[in-house]
């Protein structure tokens, strides 16, 4: 190991070394792919690379982004949460239901929606830790269950007619920037710090790499797992709130299929599906790459069916490129 490092350093010029340093990280490779994609798309249409368009894309990706952050935590611990889309629906319904049908003030209804989201997530966590159900199976079951609860509570009615202030979050801007984008940025910064700088974040990597050793080192494994699933539920609830505010209505089918979008962003971001490695930076780049591809292709006149083909291919190819580059560099 040591010998190889030095020999590399001797033979490479400084710039090349730096490029290698970037390439050594998954995020670096992904960033390069993103930049290349953006440049290609920008030559196709002048509508793409404008501040206004990019900010608008930020607005549109906020909900998935909010969910992808805790999903990164969960996948790092070697878990997965398939129920997030259903929790979005459940929280959205609870927001409308507790305001419209139960007569709570709207502020309280929002709090209830977030609380229900967190509770639903915590239940996932408890099923996974207490009964030792594999996360994929546990959340596959609650995917159906939470969506069913949303349908049962909604009774096919959607709630509309919210007061004007309610739409501030989803439809208005502050200083020219969509309001929800502030929350996404704050979410990204907090999650990134949490994951890379704190004891909690470190414990997640430890759990993902070797859960038993983490437990033997005095890390409260179960508590931390329940926390991240609850966090995932909370953020899904928040995403539900942002969505309701953006589209002005509640429906029980809100958020269906979002789990795969969020997982795609996380996996594209270089987080290993088997746990142990990954970063919020990667997830953020993955998220941005998918959104810009969708948008850029649409603006270049590519229709939706072709766009999902491109996104599917990019997912596989960028993972492949990453694997190949890492393998080459590590000399394995």
């Amino acid at each position, binding site marked *: 190991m040591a010998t190889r490092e030095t020999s590399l350093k001797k033979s490479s010029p400084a710039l090349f070394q730096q490029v290698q340093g970037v390439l050594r990280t998954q995020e670096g490779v992904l960033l390069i792919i993103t930049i290349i994609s953006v440049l290609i798309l920008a030559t196709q249409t002048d509508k793409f690379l404008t501040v206004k368009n990019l900010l608008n894309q930020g607005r549109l990706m906020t909900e998935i982004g909010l969910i992808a952050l805790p999903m990164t935590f969960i996948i790092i611990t070697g878990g997965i949460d398939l129920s997030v889309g259903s929790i979005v629906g459940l929280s959205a319904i609870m927001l409308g239901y507790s305001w419209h049908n139960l007569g709570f003030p709207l502020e309280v209804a929002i709090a209830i929606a977030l609380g229900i989201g967190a509770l639903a997530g915590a239940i996932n966590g408890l099923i996974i830790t207490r009964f030792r159900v594999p996360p994929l199976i546990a959340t596959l079951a609650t995917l159906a269950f939470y969506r069913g609860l949303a349908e049962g509570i909604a009774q096919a009615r959607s709630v509309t007619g919210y007061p004007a202030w309610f739409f501030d979050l989803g439809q208005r801007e502050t200083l020219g920037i969509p309001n929800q984008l502030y929350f996404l940025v704050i979410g990204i910064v907090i999650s990134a710090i949490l994951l890379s700088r704190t004891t909690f974040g470190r414990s997640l990597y430890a759990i993902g790499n070797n859960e038993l050793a983490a437990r033997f080192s005095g890390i409260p494994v179960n508590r931390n797992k329940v926390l991240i699933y609850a966090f995932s539920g909370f953020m899904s609830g928040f995403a539900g709130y942002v969505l309701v505010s953006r589209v002005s209505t509640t*429906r029980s089918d809100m958020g269906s299929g979002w789990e795969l979008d969020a997982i795609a962003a996380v996996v594209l971001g270089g987080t290993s599906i088997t746990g142990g490695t990954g970063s919020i930076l990667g997830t953020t780049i993955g998220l941005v790459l998918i959104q810009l591809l969708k948008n850029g292709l649409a603006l270049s006149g590519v229709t*939706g069916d072709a766009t999902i083909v491109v996104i599917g291919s990019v997912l596989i190819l960028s993972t492949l490129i990453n694997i190949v580059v890492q393998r080459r560099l590590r000399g394995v």
Partner: protein
Amino acid sequence: MRKFVVLTLVLSFILAPLAALPAVAQEEEKRWDGADDLPVNPLPCGDEPAPEPEPKEYDGGQPVNPPDLAGKEITLVDVPKLIGIGYFAATTKGQQEAAEELGNVKVTTDAPTEANIDEQITFIDNYITRGVDGILFAANDPVAITPVLKKALEQGIRVVGYDANSLPEGREWFVNQAEFNGIAKALLDSLAAEKGEDAKFGIVTSTFTTPNQARWIAEMWAYAKECHPDMVWLETLEAQEDYNLSFEQANTLIDKYGDELDGLFGMTSVATPAAADAVTQAGLCGEVAVVGLATPNAMKPFVNSGCVKSVVLWNPVDLGYAAVYVMRQVVDGNFKPGDTEVEAGRLGKLKVVNGSEVLLGPPFIYTAENINDFDF
């Protein structure tokens, strides 16, 4: 001990809905029929002409400083609920036909692959950024789609809806394929003609939250109360836009009600052929009537075999065709708020109803005599 508490908590959270099962099991009268809560407006029974509706003020939205493109070539985008089902393939066909006829219209269809409100919004948003002259849409949710449509209007883009409406302020005009009460009347009268006034029937719909289907069922409910009071509503089941599920649900209704069942209504262009398939394969042609909304090609085998007597539908090709014509007239300035009719190519003049809606006409009823004349 703590484990026990946690276990109890989790279990009770999970089991609470189960305990509520008896409460969930529904009573005969209160059975859910998939209708919405909006006011209904049933047509008179039989052949009595419908009373002229009171004229309503124009209530649509207006674009802000639209560019003057009268007579010039325009680029349109069509964002239906989803792509991948026959119905919207047919409307697309009509749009292309109209575009070709007019010569100065270009229209592309682009939509999500699932009937998903937020994705549809994203599609429209992208086209606003890209810059089109006009947007045609069929909304997955009337409320959810309105903000993004208003954004389009604010940027001077022309907006015309068809098939499924938004809130009026979200678009200039909505091309209504047939009024809800008209569909309801046609469906129920068809069943009554086939199975008599005391027919007992079940319904297969898409979902209880799909606005058009809910509206039709509400109007059917109101019309049946007035004009077919002896008909018995058995049960309504959801089946998405999924052929397999529609087939299974139709089978479930057939099996559950047995000889009691006289008819099945299919509320979507997917559910109706699926229900006909189920009845045919169960060997119950003639015993159980299938009436519903569907496109002709899918129904030809059943109508030709005599298993299905009549299929109710407007012509979706015409619907797409009309939408493009209305858009062209709006852009050319030939069709303005306050007008009472609009010129729509081979369809002739179409009537304005309900303030800002263009009515395609009465629903069309396909039978063995005419179904083979259509190909979509």
